[in-house]
C-alpha cells in the first residue's frame, strides 16, 4: 500500500467511525431549543452540568465500571485457564464444551431473563452488582473461551513441550510460559468483554432495582420523561460514558500492539 492510499483510507475510516460521534458531541453542546436548526448559533455546557450535577451520573459510571471490570476479570480468570486446556491438553469432550459454550450464548436473552431472575433471587444476588457477573458471563465467557482457545492454538506446541521437559506441570507451563505470550489475545478479549458488559441493558434493568446501583445504559434510559426526550442530556451522558472506554483502549494499546513475542516460532 502506498502512503497516499494509507492516509486516504485512514481518513475515510476515521470519518465514518468518528463522524457520527462528533455529531453526538456537538449535539451535547447544542442548546435544546435549536436542535432542529442546521447548526447551533451558540454552544452550551448546560447538558454536562445537569448530567454530572443534576443526576448522580458519576456514581452510575462507577457502577458500570465495577460491573464491567468484575465481569472482565471473572471471564479472564475462568476463561484463560479453560481455553489453555482446550487448546493444548488432551481430554474428552473438548469439542462438545466449545460447542455447548457457544450454544449457551446464542439463546435470545429476552426468553431467558425471567428464569434467570428466579435463580438470582434464590441465591440472593438480585439487586447486587456482583450478581450481574454470572448473567453477563453467559455471553462473555463463550466469547472469551473461543477467542483465547484460538489464540492458544496459534502458540507453538514446542513451547509447551519445552516447558514440560523443563519440569513444569501443565498448570505451571500455562502460567509461566503460555499466558504471558497470550497477552495480546487477553487484552483484545478483555476490551471486547468489557465493552459488552458496559453496554448491557436488559439484565441490568431487570436484576438491579436500587437507584444507587444503576448502570450507564439503565441510567440513560431513565432520562426521558413520559413523552419528552432530553436529547442533549442523553448525548452528553453518552459522551461521558464513552470516555472511560477510550482511556481503557489507550491503556491496553501497548498490549494489543505488541503482538506475539519475538522468538515464538510459527509452524
Amino acid at each position, binding site marked *: 500500500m502506498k502512503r497516499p492510499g494509507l492516509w486516504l483510507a485512514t481518513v475515510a475510516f476515521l470519518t465514518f*467511525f468518528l463522524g457520527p460521534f462528533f455529531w453526538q458531541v456537538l449535539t451535547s453542546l447544542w442548546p435544546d431549543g435549536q436542535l432542529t436548526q442546521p447548526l447551533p448559533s451558540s454552544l452550551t455546557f448546560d447538558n454536562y452540568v445537569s448530567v454530572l450535577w443534576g443526576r448522580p451520573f458519576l456514581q452510575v459510571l462507577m457502577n458500570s465500571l465495577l460491573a464491567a471490570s468484575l465481569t472482565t476479570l471473572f471471564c479472564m480468570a475462568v476463561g484463560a*485457564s479453560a481455553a489453555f486446556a482446550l487448546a493444548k491438553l488432551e481430554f474428552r469432550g473438548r469439542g462438545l464444551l466449545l460447542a455447548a459454550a457457544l450454544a449457551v*450464548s446464542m439463546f435470545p436473552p429476552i426468553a431467558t431473563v425471567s428464569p434467570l431472575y428466579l435463580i438470582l433471587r434464590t441465591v440472593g444476588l438480585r439487586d447486587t452488582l456482583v450478581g450481574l457477573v454470572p448473567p453477563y458471563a453467559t455471553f462473555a465467557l463463550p466469547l472469551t473461551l*473461543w477467542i483465547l482457545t484460538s489464540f492458544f492454538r496459534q502458540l507453538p506446541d514446542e513451547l509447551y513441550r519445552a516447558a514440560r521437559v523443563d519440569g513444569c506441570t501443565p498448570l505451571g507451563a500455562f502460567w509461566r510460559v503460555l499466558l504471558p505470550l497470550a497477552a495480546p489475545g487477553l487484552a483484545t478479549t478483555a476490551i471486547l468483554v468489557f465493552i459488552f458488559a458496559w453496554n448491557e*441493558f436488559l439484565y441490568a434493568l431487570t436484576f438491579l432495582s436500587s437507584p444507587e446501583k444503576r448502570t450507564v445504559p439503565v441510567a440513560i434510559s431513565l432520562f426521558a420523561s413520559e413523552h419528552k426526550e432530553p436529547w442533549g442530556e442523553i448525548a452528553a451522558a453518552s459522551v461521558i460514558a464513552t470516555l472511560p472506554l477510550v482511556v481503557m483502549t489507550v491503556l491496553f494499546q501497548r498490549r494489543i500492539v505488541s503482538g*506475539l513475542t519475538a522468538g515464538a516460532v510459527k*509452524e
Partner: protein
Amino acid sequence: MNGTVKAPGSMGRERRQAYMLVAPAVLVLVGVAVYPILAAIWLSLHRLILVFGERRWVGLENYGFMLGDARFWNALGNTGYFTLVAVTVELLLALPLALLLNTAFPGRGILRASVLVPWAIPTVVSAKLWAWLFNPDYGLINRLLPGPDINWLGVPGYALHAAILVDVWKTTPFMALLLLAGLQGISEDIYKAARVDGASRWRSFVSMTLPLLKPAILLALLFRTLDAFRVFDAIFVLTEGGPANTTETLSIYAYKTLMRAGNFGYGSTLSVMTFLCVVGLSLVYIRLLGKEGR
C-alpha cells in the same frame, strides 16, 4: 498447528489438570444458562397467554402454528437478509481496517483508539443517534445528500438498509479487532521471505495472509453472524419493526409476542426457533473452523 500435545509426563495427571482447568467455566455456564434455556424450551411446548391466566401443555402445537405463520416467515426473511448483508459489508470493511491497524504508521494510535468508539456507545443510544441523523426533516444525512429528502426510516426498503448501516457502523470495530488479533499471530518472517522472493504485496496478501487469517476470519464471522441474527436493540429503537413489519426480525417478533402481548408460550417458541437457526448457522462455521483447526 495441531491442536494438542502428546504429553511427555503422566497422561492421567495431565487429564486431571485439564478437567480442573475447565471445571470453573463449565460450572458457571451450567449454573446460569442451562436452567433458563430448558425453562424457555419447556414454555414453548405450552399454551401460556397471561391475559387468560391459563397454562396448558400443547406439545408441538405452537411449532405447527409457526410454520403456517406468514409473519414468522417474513421475520425470518428480514433477519436472514439483514445478517447476510450486514456481516458481508462488515467483513469487507473490517479486513482493510485490520490491515491498516496492523501497519506501522504515525496515525495508527489514534485510529486504533477511535475505531472502538462506535462500539463503546451503548446500542440504545447509538441507534437514537442514527435516528437523528436519519430524521427526514432535520437530520444531517438528508442535509448532506443532494436531491430530494428521503424518509429513511418510514419507507419500506430504505428502513432495513438504514438499520444495516447502523449495524455496520457499530460492529465493524469488533470484527476488525478480532481480525487484528489474528493478523498479529502471523509472523513477520514469512513476509520477509516473500519479499526476498519478490512477491508483490497483493500476491503475498492473497497467497499468505488470507489463508493464515482464515481461522480468525471464520471466528469473527461466527460471532458476528450469531449476533446479527439475533439483532434487536438497534432496529427496535430505529423503527420498532415498521413500517408494516418490513424491518421486523425474529428477535423483535419474539420480543413483541413475549413482552408486549404476554404470549409466553408462542413467544418462547419463536425464541427457540431463533436459537435453532443460529445453532444451524454456527454448525456450518464450526465445521469450516474444524477443517482449519486440524
